[in-house]
């Protein structure tokens, strides 16, 4: 049933998409203004953008009929298409990798795509203080797990603070008392980080010593490899980015100070619902912030969350993006962007930047995606109305220059898919009946 839509997808998998020109469009570049114009795409990249562009021979021409073209939406915090999310049993789970549990057949990918999302950061959950290694994918529906991965994206890791990590663990399957797990307070959370990075430093030094001795030709025994500490050493060495789930102002300052003590950087504060209280300090550290537009009050640490959070942080110099953390919300991130205009009065471009170029910068992929500029990946969304309108609907989504979602194709294929679905259900029912009659024992 997960393969519904494969026929359509097969067409997208054909090698070497021909050049594509989108004409007669309201082009929203996000970084270079908006105008009525054209976008030319060649070899999966944006070749030209302007009021008039050169149309390459043999180009497929798509008349947008005055509709809006904007960069594909980037959701910097999601857990879709993962077969598991949290390790949960330990406080430091840096050895786990969400890339290992990526499910390319999850229909959530197609639904996100149909909502205009072309790039998604898939994060480990927030049950562990130091969570696992994360992955960035493009919503290339129909590709296998490897084909979804965003090639060359910088590696990163998830940290988490506050209630999710201090809450006692879940009740084990089959009952019994809930797992007790350190930390159980925000004091303990700081300690977990300082302990882990103290260990990581020692491990880093052990390897450095070993390599130096070998370099000098001295006898040396290699340290025992530690898959948990390796990614933390990468953090210390600036080779792995850090995304930290945080809510309260105090814990945001705590993690910034821990990072400063150990000489690394927090790239993105995730959720960061009280970021507006400590925006000055976040900006001084140089961390980005990715937040919900208006979620609040679902737990104590979210009780001071305000929908003005994104706007306040942006006004105080923080690089801000919006995230969904939710397979449904991610289908309409354009309206989440509209909310930062409502709450805090940001401009259209500032609002749209929060779901395109800003998350791209935070993820270190802004050289490739996040705006409509020549040389960037041709990841585009076509909306029938201005994307900041409640009434806007996604018509087409292009990734790497190929049309991965086309509403007309989706609509015209529905009948055939429904027919196929019914056939499969009938076949399954017949098979189960047959199996039942075979298994029936003689009375």
């Amino acid at each position, binding site marked *: *049933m*997960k393969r*519904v839509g494969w026929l359509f997808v097969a067409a997208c998998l054909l090698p070497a998409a021909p050049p594509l020109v989108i004409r007669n469009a309201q082009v929203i570049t996000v970084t270079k203004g908006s105008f009525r114009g054209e976008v030319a795409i060649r070899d999966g990249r944006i070749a030209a953008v302007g009021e008039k562009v050169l149309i390459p021979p043999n180009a497929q021409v798509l008349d947008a009929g005055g509709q809006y073209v904007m960069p594909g939406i980037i959701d910097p915090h999601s857990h879709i298409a993962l077969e598991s999310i949290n390790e949960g049993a330990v406080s430091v789970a840096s050895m786990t990798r969400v890339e290992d549990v990526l499910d390319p057949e999850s*229909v959530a990918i*197609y*639904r996100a795509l*149909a909502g205009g999302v072309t790039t998604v950061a898939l994060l480990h959950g927030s049950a562990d203080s130091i969570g696992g290694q994360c992955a960035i994918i493009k919503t290339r529906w129909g590709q296998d797990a490897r084909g979804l991965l965003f090639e060359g994206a910088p590696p990163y890791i998830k940290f988490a603070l506050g*209630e999710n990590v201090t809450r006692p663990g879940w009740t084990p399957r089959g009952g019994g008392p809930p797992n007790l797990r350190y930390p159980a307070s925000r004091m303990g959370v700081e300690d977990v980080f300082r302990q882990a990075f103290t260990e990581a430093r020692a491990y880093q030094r052990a390897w450095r010593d070993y390599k130096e001795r070998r370099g000098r030709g001295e006898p040396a025994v290699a340290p025992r490899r530690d898959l948990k500490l390796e990614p933390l050493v990468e953090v210390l060495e600036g080779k792995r980015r850090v995304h930290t789930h945080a809510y309260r102002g105090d814990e945001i300052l705590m993690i910034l100070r821990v990072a400063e003590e150990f000489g690394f950087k927090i790239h993105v504060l995730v959720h960061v619902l009280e970021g*507006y*209280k400590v*925006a*000055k300090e976040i900006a001084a550290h140089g961390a980005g912030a990715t937040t919900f537009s*208006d*979620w*609040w*009050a*679902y*737990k*104590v640490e*979210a*009780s*001071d969350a*305000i*929908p*003005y959070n994104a706007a*306040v942080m942006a*006004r105080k110099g923080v690089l801000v993006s919006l995230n969904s953390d939710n*397979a*449904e919300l991610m*289908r*309409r991130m354009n*309206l989440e962007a*509209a*909310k930062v*205009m*409502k*709450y*805090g009065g940001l401009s259209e471009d500032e609002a749209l930047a929060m779901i395109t170029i800003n998350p791209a910068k935070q993820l270190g992929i802004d050289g490739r995606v996040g705006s409509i500029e020549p040389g960037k990946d041709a990841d585009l969304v076509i909306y*029938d*109305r201005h994307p*900041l*309108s*409640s*009434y*806007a*609907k996604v018509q087409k989504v292009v990734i790497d220059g190929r049309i991965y979602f086309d509403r007309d194709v*989706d609509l015209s294929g*529905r009948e055939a*898919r429904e027919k196929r*679905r019914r056939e499969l259900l009938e076949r399954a029912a017949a098979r189960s009946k047959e199996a039942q009659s075979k298994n029936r024992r003689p009375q």
Partner: protein
Amino acid sequence: MRGARLVWLLMAGAAVAAAAAGDSFLLRGGTVHPVSGPEIAGGSVLVIDGRIAEVGTRVRAPRGVPVIDVKGLEVYPGLIDSATRLGVFEIGSLRETNDFTDLGTFKPQLRIAVAINPESEHIAVTRANGITAAVVQPAGGIVAGQAALIHLDGWTNEEMLIEPSVAMRMEFPHTGGRGSYAERKKRYQAQVRELEEFFESARRYQRAKAAGGPDFRPDLRLEAMLPVLEGRLPLLIQADREKTIREALAFAEKQKVRMILQRAPQAWKLAAELKARDIPVVLAETLSLPEEEDEPYDRPFTTPGELFKAGVQFCFATYSPGGASTNPFNLPYQAAAAVPFGLPREEALKAVTLGAARIWGVADRIGSIEKGKLADLIVTDGDPLEVRTQVRRMFIRGRAVDLDNKHKRLYEKYMNRP
């Protein structure tokens, strides 16, 4: 003391003067959207003693009635959210702040109207986006209790009430939940039996009470069922999948009760029957994922349009026990989400105003800008279903409502942090 009071009065006086004095005023020169009729450009709404006295283009303010210029702005009836936990929920993870659910399976005697906290931060936050009335619903068990319809303004919960009891809320048993399918099926069958037995005992109670024999003993639980059995109080049934909806419809028919269907992501499959039996639907899940993995990606967005085409009455809401609840201040966007997928825009607006009022039996009092109705009004700078629109003023029963709230206070405080 006296001095402080005077200062307070002066301050309040200044604020009120900026809005309206008392509950009589004339809104003049805006575009009025009555919902019950076509929009009126350059229109005015006269409010006297909290009620709408006149609507039109040539309305004059009687002597002493202040005039509020709303030129360039839009006047709409206040929005109605048909399923919320407003006033009975503060912080999701804190049990002590959650009063919408109690122990037990059948508890029709529970009245949420008595547990509403007028000081809840959620009320002011919700109001700020144009919502003036809300149905507050209990949850849990099979029969959860009585839902109340409230105004989002009032010094006490009693003052807030429009109707203390607008529906008896129940969840129809289904085979979902935890455990193996065999366990769930067994539980479901037991619950259906219990439900039928419960209604049967309520009927026996009804007969015993009518007979008035010497052994008759009052029973609050069964007593609370009488308005349902007598068709005076609708039974608000939450049912999710097609099969459960069918069973709920059959149950309501057998029991001869008035039914309102809630949640019902698969109601579109039964639109013809809902229309034929005149059963309205409370849609709390436009902004949700398709119920089934293989349904079209836009299924929740197309459902309202399909119900409309079939002639089914429906309204929008934000709370769905066990479902995809959203913040009640996002109510307008539950409605807006259906517009690009087949629901006419004016019908989306109706389903959060007059349509909702009709379903809850209060269309004589709220839901549109018509003479004689309570003056529940919002003044906006645009279409209230558009995210970017700001609500500039609000009146509930003709009283100017303060649109300030915790979010705005924290915003201003920290925006001004040096």
